[in-house]
């Protein structure tokens, strides 16, 4: 075939000489600070992402990374707490999250004297008293569940301990520029043909131009707003009261380790007792805003009394105490008198653990039922009472979808905010950090543009649905338990719903969130972490956990007749077959 030249080509061919002379290595840039990744937010998730990124050698050696945080991070770096006081912001860290932190080299920087294993969780329905127990010994195949010979479902630790460990890890690696005490004041899109990059304006007058902008900037995420990512959610009519609680050792003279977490679902919201040391534990009590406000304003002894009552008294009495506290006469003495009266009228044995008054004055022998409820709270760490609004929120996507939002990704609370009842918010964020870092690593070793959609899509794919499942399960649990409606309570009490809950409580409390791949920085395709593949071990583990709790489920149905037990059995075995 003869060579045909269209006019276009002819012109092109003729002008080739000129092209050759003008071969160029592209225009010079303005004097912006050029960055490959700018992370907005130095909360636990932003710091975890930074650490995870620089744990990868190719990332460390090739990318310029900055993290901007409004607060003064020196306060976190120089965190030197007294050995017997604890921050009121604590989290339960799943084993998956702990593995992730080990992998990125930060767990060794976490103060181990200030972490506490949770070996068992007891969760019960405040209305029907149906109870489920999870124990670390149920997790037969979970690797790394054991530290110092203690098998743990999770570890409690202060958020500050984690942030401090992450900062030390970052200081050691030295590959991230941390810009703190500086607020992001504005983010704009550079106006350039072919698609501008994000320009991050800071309160100290700098402009950071970045290839990839990550929002780890919490619930009110400015990055999310810049990227035009809508989010879906609501505020629950609930606030979480947090405080550090002091109490005698569990089991008194028996010195049983304080490694059981307790959570009771009251119609006003769940109350959780999370062990920190043998004599200190952390409270997360989700309740109505008016009650939260009344308690925050009262004598700390009021909170202590209410906490003891909330784990012990029947639900109907809790309702009365709630009203009582909102009345004018709510002094501590009046409250104690009220509780005493209610115990008597419910026929609570003064020698049982269910009595607030006698179990503290023992001679070292605990009541026989001591392990079904937390120890009696005797005092509250001064200044540790605070409360937070509770929200449900999920961003519509984790990466900027429009041209305007190009080169952005969200992690942690910027992407999702969850009810604290399952203690998963931070764990989900850490799993996000793990997945996003893996994605960036894979892009770097393949020469991909780390800000491109092609590079970021696997991150969204790995995390969105996983987080969505947890958000939905937790929301469902909250709603299910906020009702005192007869039929629902009946269903809960005979174990019908309990099975569904088992499923989602288990999922929510024990295993789902957290770094999910031990091999995320292995770029070989066979090992590339992938949402689809990781479902299998997860599903398998789910069945494992369920069969482990099988006996407990039967116990739940105890005394409720064959109906409940057989339903539980049927559903459990159908789940196991799935």
């Amino acid at each position: 075939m003869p060579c045909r030249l269209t006019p276009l080509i002819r012109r092109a061919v003729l002008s080739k000489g000129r092209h050759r002379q003008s071969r160029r290595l592209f225009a010079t840039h303005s004097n912006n600070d050029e960055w490959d990744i700018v992370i907005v937010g130095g909360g636990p998730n932003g710091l975890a992402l930074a650490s995870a990124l620089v744990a990868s050698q190719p990332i460390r050696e090739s990318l310029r990374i900055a993290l901007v945080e409004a607060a003064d991070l020196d306060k976190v770096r120089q965190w030197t707490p007294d050995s017997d006081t604890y921050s009121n912001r604590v989290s339960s860290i799943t084993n998956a999250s702990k593995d992730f932190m080990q992998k990125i080299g930060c767990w060794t920087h976490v103060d181990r004297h200030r972490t506490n294993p949770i070996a068992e969780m007891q969760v019960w329905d405040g209305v029907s008293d149906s109870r489920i127990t999870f124990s670390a010994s149920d997790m037969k195949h979970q690797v790394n569940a054991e530290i110092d010979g203690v098998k743990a479902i999770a570890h409690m630790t202060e958020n500050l301990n984690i942030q401090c460990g992450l900062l030390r890890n970052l200081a050691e690696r030295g590959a991230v520029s941390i810009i703190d005490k500086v607020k992001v004041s504005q983010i704009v899109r550079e106006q350039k043909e072919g698609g501008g990059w994000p320009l991050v304006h800071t309160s100290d007058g700098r402009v950071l131009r970045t290839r990839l902008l990550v929002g780890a900037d919490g619930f009110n995420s400015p990055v999310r707003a810049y990227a035009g990512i809508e989010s879906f959610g609501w505020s629950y009519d609930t606030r979480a009261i947090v405080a550090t609680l002091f109490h005698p050792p569990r089991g008194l003279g028996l010195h049983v380790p304080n490694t059981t977490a307790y959570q009771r679902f009251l119609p006003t919201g769940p109350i959780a007792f999370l062990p920190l040391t043998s004599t200190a534990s952390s409270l997360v009590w989700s309740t109505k805003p008016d009650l939260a406000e009344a308690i925050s304003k009262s004598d700390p002894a009021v909170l202590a009394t209410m906490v003891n009552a909330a784990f012990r008294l029947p639900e109907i009495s809790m309702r009365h105490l709630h009203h009582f506290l909102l009345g004018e006469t709510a002094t501590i003495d009046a409250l104690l008198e009220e509780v005493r009266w209610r115990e008597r009228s419910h026929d609570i044995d003064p020698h049982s653990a269910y009595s607030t008054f006698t179990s503290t004055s023992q001679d070292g022998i605990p009541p026989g039922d001591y392990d079904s409820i937390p120890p009696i709270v005797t005092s509250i760490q001064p200044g540790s009472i605070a409360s937070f609004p509770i929200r449900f929120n999920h961003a519509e996507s984790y990466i900027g979808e429009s041209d305007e939002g190009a080169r952005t990704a969200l992690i942690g609370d910027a992407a999702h905010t969850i009810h604290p009842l399952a203690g998963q918010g931070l764990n989900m964020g850490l799993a996000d950090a793990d997945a996003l870092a893996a994605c960036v690593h894979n892009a770097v070793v393949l020469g991909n543009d780390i800000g491109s959609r092609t590079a970021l899509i696997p991150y969204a794919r790995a995390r969105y649905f996983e987080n969505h499942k947890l958000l939905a399960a937790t929301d469902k649990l909250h709603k299910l338990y906020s009702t005192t409606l007869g039929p629902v309570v009946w269903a809960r009490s005979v174990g019908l719903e309990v099975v569904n809950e088992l499923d989602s409580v288990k999922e929510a409390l024990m295993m789902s969130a957290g770094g999910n791949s031990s091999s995320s920085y292995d770029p070989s395709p066979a090992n590339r972490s992938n949402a689809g593949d990781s479902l299998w071990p997860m599903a398998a583990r789910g069945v494992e956990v369920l069969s482990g709790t099988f006996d407990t489920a039967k116990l739940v149905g105890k005394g409720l007749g064959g109906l409940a037990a057989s339903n539980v059995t049927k559903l459990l075995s159908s789940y196991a077959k799935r």
Partner: protein
Amino acid sequence: MRLQGTSKHCALVIAGVRRSRRPLPQHPRHSSTSTINADEISHFSRLSSQWWDERGEFALLHKMNPVRVQFVRGKLLEAARDDAVSGHEELEIERNDNAGRTLDGLDVLDVGCGGGLLSESLSRLGARTVGVDASASNIAIASMHASLDPWFSNATPSSSTPQRKYLEYRHASAEDLVQEPKRFDVVCSMEVLEHVDNPAGFLRSCAELVKPGGHLFLSTISRTPLSYLLTIFAAEQALRLVAPGTHTYNKFVKPSELVDFFCKPVSSSESKPWITRLYDGSPTRREAEVRGIVYVPWKGEWMLAPRGAPGATACNYLFWVRKPLDC
């Protein structure tokens, strides 16, 4: 022209399917632009502004890119390991690979670079990359896109500017470059072969641009009923994932035809072929390799098929061949 091509396609399919294997079409070498098909070039020129829309016309190519780079990277690492005399010393290329600079110091040519998807990636991995294309507007788009990226800009490096990578675009054809003295460690030409006239002449030019001991990487589409179904019928006509007229069935080249081509001396100036033996029709791992690359719709990703996976090369495939040191 191309847009009226439907009936033309059908006719060609029948002809193509019947003739199962053929030598690569050749034309006497008469002009420096002999492999350029003008219709093809104007087709791509028309689409040029869309090169970097990751969800647009070239979405599938964007998704394919990391897998192509994975193949290139893997093959170069493998060859370097084979070359290493002693297995004990840590290889330079592996050191570079661990630092995300696998191609550091290599001269790489990307023939038919289009918007520069592959060129940018190769350059980021450290290659001194030259991208050439027969379409001036593609070169313009590629250059503009690279100018957004400080890694490719020529500002003087300072503490607040990042590392420098080498990337150069030229409006030229492979034949033009043959006239120049410069030769390359690696020559890539991805998704181009199915768009050229005189594929044999085109391959000869690409091959000539490779330094002795260097590598040639190609990716293209095989000529099978399946490839017709997927690339022309489904992608262009039924689903409109790709502009109609993008592909012409009888220009598709089978892997075996590429292998055959390199089983003979590539040009009169070379004394021996690049592929010296075949086992069951397949070359040895050190001389050449054909790997299928498969789109998995439910994952939205391309996957490199395992070596020798049955049927995997019936549509899109990657091809690597190494130029002997003494040829």
